[in-house]
């Protein structure tokens, strides 16, 4: 038990250090720094990946509806946080918005989650009877339907039709993103370590045995689907804040695949893996590999071959293939990062060295 407590404390210290670093970046980094846009995106997609992991990695339900739930969250958040005096301007093509109030950020975020969760509940009733690939196809279809529906002219006064929504509350500071993402992921971790989480894992491992133990399969699958979608909705709202503009065209299937990629690279069934992978994925695709897209000339004036628009994605895709080939389990597999175990490992190496040294003296 004490051992377990030490592990938790060490991990909390790590989380504290990360939060401190983010606050420091917020305070001292120049406003043009890439850290801002990258970390905002990392926080958003870390949450999206962790919520997908709850479903795919911990409950064993292969769902590809993430883009749909994120869209619902993003639209809910954006529509509810536009200042009242800006509304007629944003919704100018449709006369005026049907909603005439502005919600505070936190309330709108929670509501974004609830709307996504509500739709997940409705969709889950029929769809969760399906298994593996069929479930993936059905949820993928749902995401496309949602994307089509919000663009309808008749929903214009609510969703602004195909036109983007903007002017809503969009905080700039990374600390806000880190806090939303951190609190949400913390709740998911608590969930996974609870009895419910254990039941989810049991269903993933063996449905028939889980049923024989008296676990209600339909009820638990539904629960996992709804919770995962709730946090997906919040991630969607965060994505709206990142982009400062919401438009249905950005919630494509390829975004779902990106999230899936983050989950796979990090390790299916590892929360810390998803977070690390989200950082590596978005930092390298948006920042570290950016130079590959620029046409570069050597000092002699000749053009460096291959470098140019689009080349970044070639290199990036090759890197992903290498990761999937050589780390078949992803970066973390199903393990979680543990500072305490790391310290113990380093300590044991040192202790062994000292013991060896002692021997050679004698």
């Amino acid at each position, binding site marked *: 038990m004490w051992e377990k407590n030490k592990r938790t404390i060490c991990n909390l210290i790590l989380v504290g250090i990360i939060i401190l670093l983010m606050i420091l970046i917020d305070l001292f980094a120049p406003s043009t720094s890439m850290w801002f846009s990258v970390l905002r995106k990392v926080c958003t997609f870390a949450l999206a990946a962790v919520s997908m992991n709850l479903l795919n990695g911990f409950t064993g339900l292969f769902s590809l509806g993430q883009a749909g739930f994120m869209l619902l969250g993003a639209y809910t958040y954006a529509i509810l946080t536009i200042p009242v005096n800006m509304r007629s301007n944003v919704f100018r093509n449709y006369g005026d918005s049907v909603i005439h109030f502005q919600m505070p950020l936190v309330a709108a975020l929670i509501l974004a989650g609830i709307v996504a969760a509500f739709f997940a509940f409705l969709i889950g009733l029929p769809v969760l009877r399906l298994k593996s690939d069929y479930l993936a196809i059905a949820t993928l279809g749902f995401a496309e339907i949602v994307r089509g529906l919000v663009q309808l002219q008749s929903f214009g006064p609510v969703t602004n039709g195909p036109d983007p929504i903007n002017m809503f509350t969009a905080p700039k500071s990374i600390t806000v993103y880190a806090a939303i993402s951190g609190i949400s992921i913390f709740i998911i971790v608590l969930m996974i370590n609870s009895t419910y989480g254990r039941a989810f894992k049991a269903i993933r491992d063996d449905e028939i045995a889980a049923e*024989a133990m008296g*676990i209600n399969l339909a009820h638990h699958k539904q629960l996992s689907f709804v919770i995962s979608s709730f946090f997906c909705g919040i991630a969607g709202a965060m994505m709206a804040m990142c982009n400062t503009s919401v438009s249905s065209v950005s919630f494509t299937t390829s975004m779902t695949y990106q999230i899936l990629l983050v989950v796979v690279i990090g390790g299916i069934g590892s929360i810390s893996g998803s977070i690390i992978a989200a950082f590596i994925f978005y930092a390298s695709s948006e920042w570290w590999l950016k130079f590959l897209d620029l046409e570069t000339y050597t000092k002699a004036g000749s053009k460096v071959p291959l470098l140019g628009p689009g080349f970044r994605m070639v290199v990036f895709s090759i890197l992903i293939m290498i990761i999937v080939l050589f780390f078949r389990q992803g970066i973390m597999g199903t393990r979680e990062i543990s500072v305490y175990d790391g310290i113990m490992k380093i300590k044991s190496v040192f202790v062994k060295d000292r013991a060896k040294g002692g021997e050679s003296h004698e």
Partner: protein
Amino acid sequence: MSDNILEIKTLNVRFGGILAVNDISLDVRRGKIVTLIGANGAGKSTILRSVSGIVKPVHGEILFEGENIMGLTPEQIVKKGITLVPEGRRVFPNLTVLENLKMGAYLRKDNYDNDLSYVYRLFPRLEERSWQSAGTLSGGEQQMLAVGRALMSSPKLIMMDEPSLGLAPLVVRDIFSIIRTINENGITVLLIEQNANMALKTCDYGYVIETGNITMQGEGDKLLNDERVKEAYLGKSRNG
């Protein structure tokens, strides 16, 4: 209350037009070990799955302590005090041994520490490995875990589907002696076996099932000495 903890009356189960279980009736006396033997595909597993609510029978009656439990969900049936140790062990490979045991007690709201220490007393090996993931256990240990997990729901009736499947003879002996211990501690056992010899030696009463019908029944040692059973399930070598 009658002596029978479980009574099955004219049970019929179909799988897409194929009759798997045909008008089977059988009784399980409280506090006894009852075994069903028979070849592959005779319908033994289907009977157990019907009792635990995983398979829906066409018609018939399943009475547990005098109450009809047919049509209840697996969840409700586990709550009533029936657990199934499924065929092929089916432990949760990525959960630790302790987590597996806790899953067995999933529906219990009361404190189950006593049952946990009871299971650890029965299977000291499981306590040594409580932090190991179940997938890393040997076949015999996994079977012990499957039995221990079922015991965690503190059942009145435990049903075991082929507990000796794919295990070494020595391990099989261990498992059967554990089954006897569990029974002596007051839990009724309904056992399915292909290892007819071992099963009939252990049980109080046995049924022989062939293609969905009961063809013979009797006390364990009577069946063990029956010429037809010997020929069909025990092999000729016993005559020599």
